């Protein structure tokens, strides 16, 4: 994928011919310095933005052929999002936030039961009916993880999920994500500039100036402390 912002002399190449494959069930980190293009890359994978050149395939589907409505449905079914500031909807309770992707998708069947189980799994049972703006940052991020998992997506994308948390809470959130990934055989792609919290992962993609120049298995990687 290539992504260019602006035109003529204001042209900025945020992604330069970046290409990689991620297998199902893997826990992948995207690391890089600030402005390196990692969030742009995540937005492309998350289908929130379209590449200037190139294509994103998810579950073998060429997403460049999807129109706006189909793309929304695709995001709803195949992708889960965890943002840096959790971005829960402050007008809804924790339970309603977790339920939201299921309701948007219109598949309400066992939605509430699933949501309650997920909330229990992330340790927020006692906060379930609290308004999202009445819980702590760490609790919000746990709720965001539950929301990202409710539709059993193909990939969960996390953009700096620990960026707004203290070190203790960050470690707890990382452990939660890793345990959920293992338990549910769930693919996670996490953008971070703090890989130290993640320990061993299946893959680390390093990005610099929009180019992917390093792609290594964590067993061979010396995680920078």
């Amino acid at each position: 994928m290539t992504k260019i912002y602006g035109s003529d002399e204001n042209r900025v190449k945020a992604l330069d011919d970046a290409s990689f494959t991620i297998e199902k069930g893997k826990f992948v980190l995207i690391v890089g310095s600030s402005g390196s293009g990692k969030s742009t890359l995540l937005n492309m994978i998350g289908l929130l933005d379209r590449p200037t050149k190139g294509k994103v395939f998810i579950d073998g589907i060429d997403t460049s052929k999807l129109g706006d409505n189909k793309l929304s449905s695709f995001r709803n079914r195949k992708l889960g999002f965890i943002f840096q500031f959790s971005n829960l909807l402050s007008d809804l309770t924790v339970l309603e936030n977790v339920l939201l992707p299921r309701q948007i998708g219109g598949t309400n069947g066992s939605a509430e039961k699933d949501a309650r189980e997920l909330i229990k799994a992330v340790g927020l049972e006692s906060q379930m009916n609290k308004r999202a703006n009445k819980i702590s940052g760490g609790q919000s991020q746990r709720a965001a993880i539950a929301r990202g998992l409710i539709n059993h997506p193909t990939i969960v994308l996390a953009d700096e999920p620990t960026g707004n948390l203290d070190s203790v809470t960050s470690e707890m959130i990382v452990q939660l994500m890793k345990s959920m990934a293992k338990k549910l055989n769930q693919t996670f792609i996490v953008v971070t500039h703090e890989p130290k919290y993640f320990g061993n992962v299946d893959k680390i993609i390093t990005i610099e100036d929009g180019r992917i120049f390093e792609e290594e298995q964590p067993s061979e990687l010396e995680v920078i402390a």
Partner: protein
Amino acid sequence: MDYRLRLAKRMLFNKKGSLIGAVLAVTIGILVIHVNFVIFQGLFDAIVRDITNYRNGDILVTDENDYIDKSDLALVNWFERIPYVQGAAPRLSASAEINMTKNGKLIEETRVPVVGVDPFQDVKTSTVHETVAEGRYVLNRNSIVLGTNVARDLGNAQVGDSIKVLIVDRWGEDQIRRFTVSGIVKSPGGQGLDYSVVMHIDTLRDMMSRQGESSSFMVKLNDPSKALEVKEFFLAAFPNDDFIAETIEESAEEQLAGFRSGIAMISMIGYFGMMSSAFAIVTIQMMLVNGKTKEIGVMRAIGAKRKDILVIFIFQGMIIGSIGAGVGTAAGLGYTFYAKETKMTFNNSLPLEVTYNWEKIYQTALMSFALAIIASLYPSYRATKLLPVEAIRTG
């Protein structure tokens, strides 16, 4: 409950200031229309009521030849056989010169309208007798009732005073008679016979040399909605006469035409007021959309379609519209109830004829509800145009 409706409700109710502002805008729009209606339609109806009660009745019968020569008894009996008819009374009109000597000074008034009435029939048909402020209504053939303005112009004539009346009869001869003032009439709002004098119809007939003739017949109905039916029935019953029968809408058309266009203009102003409340809703909803940019971005990211975002903000418009229409209608009805119970007057004189026009009440509520939805379309559309990435980053 649909998640979009729940979200719309929560977003709105958690921004109480915006909700109150938007609801208030709709409420004020509706209230302005109700207040306008109570005052101006009330004034119009009051004028119609007074013209009906004092001058024209529900049906006014005249003759193409200026004077009706059919006997009073025949016509009154004919009308009073109809169950809808409350009463029928002949009237005769003329113009007179009046003079009175007060404190040795002769005061003269010319071109004073004179109304001849049959006192027995008139009290069943008109309410002029209820406007007698001093003294009594027409007692006998030698008594006269002065309109309050005539009495004033005659140097404050009072009950018991003697006045001279000059009328030119049908042959062009001056007929002069002396009368005793038996009463003074004063109507609230001045729509009655305040500028006229009232005397016995037979006296006036004598003076005009028009025995057995009348200028008009006032017919008062128990049920004014039957006016057209009674009128048609009357005209069909006297096909060979030259009668003209008019309902109040027809007989007072000239007097009411100006009022009608005035009311239409004031209603327009009310509706413009409602339009401006729609602009207030647009502004408030734009603020709501701007305040929820990040949330909109997140919803789009997790799969909400543009249509879903549109529906959320249209639901908000519907909520604002229904609460505003409810509160505004309640406030409007409250004002109408107050105006009716306190017998509100216009300019401290004319009692307004306050009615509940349910069709207009529903229409106003429905229109404001629809306007709130229409007003929410633009902010909703703007919300759908937000790009998820931009919205999350900048929100």
